[in-house]
């Protein structure tokens, strides 16, 4: 029952919010609903709820043999925890942002949460596809309605990009359906006997969808524009959670199902990932807009996860798993800071800011910790994930180019230190100017949100074991299917 409740809470609340007229009430209801799903998720993970309640399996479409099948295995738990944790933080940290028709805004936000949770829990391919699209529709409306100046063109580009990807995925899933003898069940997709040509076809169809979503170079062109033009709360959803949909897709629906094609084509995708990382890092260094800077840094970080998955080993996959979570909360922290700056000064240009540390010391301290995590300093959570991934790529028996990949990826880590620290230096240190001289420190809601994230960063940084053991079984299974250790 837990999966169904997890989806229904945001779904029903989100739909109901359209009827709520008062802004403050709508906001509070949305926060409560997201906290409720977080509580449910935590209760489910801590063992208070019977394990049998963590799956749900009911018939849906008799004719084509598709079922309402949700389950919360280790990887799903990790990502659902990320989702349910992020939404309260997103809503609370942007508490003071003003939106027209805010009831609709929060309604759509909750609907997208329902879609995202469904994606992470579905074990039926058609159901997965359903939620994959459902998560997209509310975000389309959110970006186009409340976004920046060029929002309409940018969002339709985003939508068409991802829609093409998902249609390819649909074809791939249909092909698997016929191969599996008329079943959409994930478990029936495993161990299918296919020729290498068929496997390759299905692999490419699915991989395009995931590559666009993550995004992987060269399918990334929608991403910086969309991140920039969306309202920041929506950018948080897009980068903290939605980008993980693609990575999750690779780990659940691609690598275990078409393992030999993944193995054969691994080098191609790993190379693309490395190119993307370098490319995004170099561009990030030249950005003057805070949002675009974080957007490009996100491409670089996601690229490392893609690399670890396509040059696989146990350590690398485990690193990618935990890094999905880490990147989620770290980037959330970055966006919160961007949002504070944008709300306060009405600009995101680095060149127009400066000297904030004198006026907002708390913000600066919290940001520096988040930024250190972003560049994977030891004792922060990202260090654990990225170290494991480097270790994994270097030791992967699946690729001959492990060393080259590792060196290139290490360069991007250095670059990320360059652009992140430079941004901090320009924005927070130095002399105040006319704009920033009247700045005040952050309000309580931002403090609390950032504090939660910082606690998370340090906690996972020193004690990552619970999260790692959560996904160890899934990682070992994926590797086993690829005949790797």
């Amino acid at each position, binding site marked *: 029952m837990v999966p169904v409740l997890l989806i229904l809470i945001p779904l029903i609340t989100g739909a109901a919010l359209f009827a709520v007229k008062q802004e403050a009430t709508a906001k509070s209801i949305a926060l409560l609903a997201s906290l409720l799903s977080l509580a449910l998720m935590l209760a489910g993970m801590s063992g208070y709820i019977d394990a049998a309640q963590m799956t749900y399996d009911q018939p849906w*479409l*008799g*004719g*084509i043999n598709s079922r309402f099948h949700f389950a919360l295995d280790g990887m799903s738990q990790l990502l659902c925890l990320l989702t349910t944790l992020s939404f309260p933080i997103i809503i609370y940290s942007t508490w003071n942002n003003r939106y027209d028709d805010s009831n609709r805004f929060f309604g759509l936000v909750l609907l997208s949460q329902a879609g995202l949770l469904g994606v992470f829990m579905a074990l039926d391919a058609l159901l997965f*596809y*359903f939620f994959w*699209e*459902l998560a997209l*529709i509310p975000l389309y*409306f959110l970006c*186009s*309605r409340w976004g920046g100046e060029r*929002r*309409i063109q940018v969002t*339709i580009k985003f*939508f*068409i990009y991802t*829609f*093409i990807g998902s*249609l*390819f995925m*649909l*074809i791939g899933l*249909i*092909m698997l*359906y*016929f191969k599996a003898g008329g079943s959409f069940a994930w478990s029936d997709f495993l161990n299918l006997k296919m020729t290498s040509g068929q496997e390759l*076809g299905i692999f490419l169809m699915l991989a395009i969808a995931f590559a666009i979503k993550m995004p992987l170079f060269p399918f990334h062109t929608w991403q910086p524009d969309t991140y920039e033009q969306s309202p920041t709360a929506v950018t948080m959803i897009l980068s903290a959670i939605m980008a993980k949909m693609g990575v999750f897709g690779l780990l659940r629906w691609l690598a275990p199902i078409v393992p030999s094609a993944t193995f054969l084509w691994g080098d191609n995708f790993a190379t693309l990932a490395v190119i993307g990382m370098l490319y995004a890092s170099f561009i990030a260094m030249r950005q003057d807009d805070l949002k675009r800077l974080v957007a490009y840094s996100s491409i670089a970080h996601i690229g490392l996860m893609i690399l670890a998955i396509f040059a696989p080993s146990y350590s690398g996959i485990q690193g990618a798993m935990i890094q999905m979570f880490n990147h989620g909360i770290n980037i959330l922290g970055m966006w919160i800071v961007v949002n504070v700056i944008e709300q306060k000064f009405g600009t995101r240009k680095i060149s127009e800011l400066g000297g904030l540390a004198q006026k907002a010391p708390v913000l600066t301290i919290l940001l520096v910790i988040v930024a250190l995590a972003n560049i994977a300093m030891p004792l922060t959570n990202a260090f654990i994930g990225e170290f494991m991934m480097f270790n994994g790529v270097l030791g992967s028996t699946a690729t001959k180019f492990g060393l080259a990949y590792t060196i290139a990826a290490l360069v991007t880590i250095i670059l990320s230190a360059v652009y992140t620290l430079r941004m901090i230096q320009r924005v927070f240190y130095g002399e105040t100017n006319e704009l920033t001289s009247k700045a005040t420190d952050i309000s309580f809601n931002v403090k609390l949100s950032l504090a939660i994230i910082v606690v998370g960063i340090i906690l996972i940084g020193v004690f990552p074991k619970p999260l790692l053991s959560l996904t160890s079984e899934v990682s070992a299974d994926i590797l086993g299917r690829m005949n790797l250790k």
Partner: protein
Amino acid sequence: MNAIILSAILGVILMFSGIFVTSKTAIRNIATAGMALLLLVNIAEQGGFHLFNVNTHNMLVFSKFGLLFNSIAFSATLLFFLVSAKDITNVGINAAEYFALIFFISCGIAIVSSFNSLLLLFLGIEIISIPLYILTGSDKRNLKSNEASLKYFLMGSFSTGIMLLGIALVYGAKASFSMEQMHSSINAGRNAWFYAGLLLVLISMLFKVSAAPFHFWTPDVYDGAPTVFTSFMATIVKAGVFIALVRLFDMSFVGSGYDWQLIIAIVTAATLFIGNITAIFQQSVKRMLAYSSIAQAGFMLFGVFSQNDFSREGIILYTLGYSLATIGIFAVLIKMKDYTFEGFNGLARTEPVLAATTTIFLLSLAGIPLTIGFFAKYFMLASAVKSGSHLWLVIFAILCAAISVYYYFRVIQSMYFKTGLAETEPVTPVFRWLLAGMAAAVIILGIFPNLVLQYLYF
């Protein structure tokens, strides 16, 4: 048989009510009640209850598939009457006759959904076409309507001639009009006359469903005809002809070993391409919908292309989903003062219900999950994947589906994200409720398509 006879009788009744009944409201009510009765009688026949016992000498065969299709077509027409009856009576002075013609078209649809002889196919297609020529020109004082009607009539007559020639060739080759006869002797000698004849029949049918390269009449006719009738033509009538096409192919080409699949694949690809690409450049929503209907016809052609269980289920769902959505959008369009995209600017502020329901209909046309349009497309694509050949067509189709998002979403962008004061004719609360009901149906069937499909098997 129930539906064929009753719809003809109802048509005559409506004709006479034009003489004896002066109130337009009364005529509307008679027509709506008549359509409800027709639907009821057809459902009764699905349950095995026959009003008339006519020996058709095997020229008509009433299968579950055909009857289910009739039910769907009649339900769609009933909905069409409910939301747009007022606009039908406002087209001109001969209100009752318009309804009568629609009943005659229903009769034609009931014939083509169950024909078993090429003669009956021809009769059915003509019964559908001739009233349409009249309906297209029913806005007598409008030059565009006249032009559309004449164009449609001339082109339609040509295609009729081609069909007759084809039937003649088929008869010459097989010495029979019967479909079963053709099916049983299909491999008895590769008879060139037979295939030439079928090809001519195919061309004529493709003309009627506005598939490329026989689509040139469509935009002008759909644009020129009074908008209510465009709505009817683009949905129910088109689906009716598609059923005929599916039936024809089901029984004639399958197993022939000829490369007919390639022909259909090329036509499908051309239709998808031309429909979608041209729709992008339209400035008027009505014309955009005309091209989109060509594009949707491309997807429906998958039902002819693959010929398996999936395609049969798909064409049923497609008919339903496409008709529901398109009738809904046209019903809103009629109420608009300005048919261009700019005319929709800010509709979400002035008429939120209309905007929300139109959005759902558009999402359904684009094939987004949670709407019936998704399952319609899903079944079509799955049928093509199952048939195993010509995978390029499937990939081409999804690229076109992605293109279609662009122009469907332009309407959504206008309604929600652009500022303006969209002007509409006054709309009644009943109209809003009806639209909301249709949108709800689109979503419910989008989650549980089995609600409709189960009737195919029981």
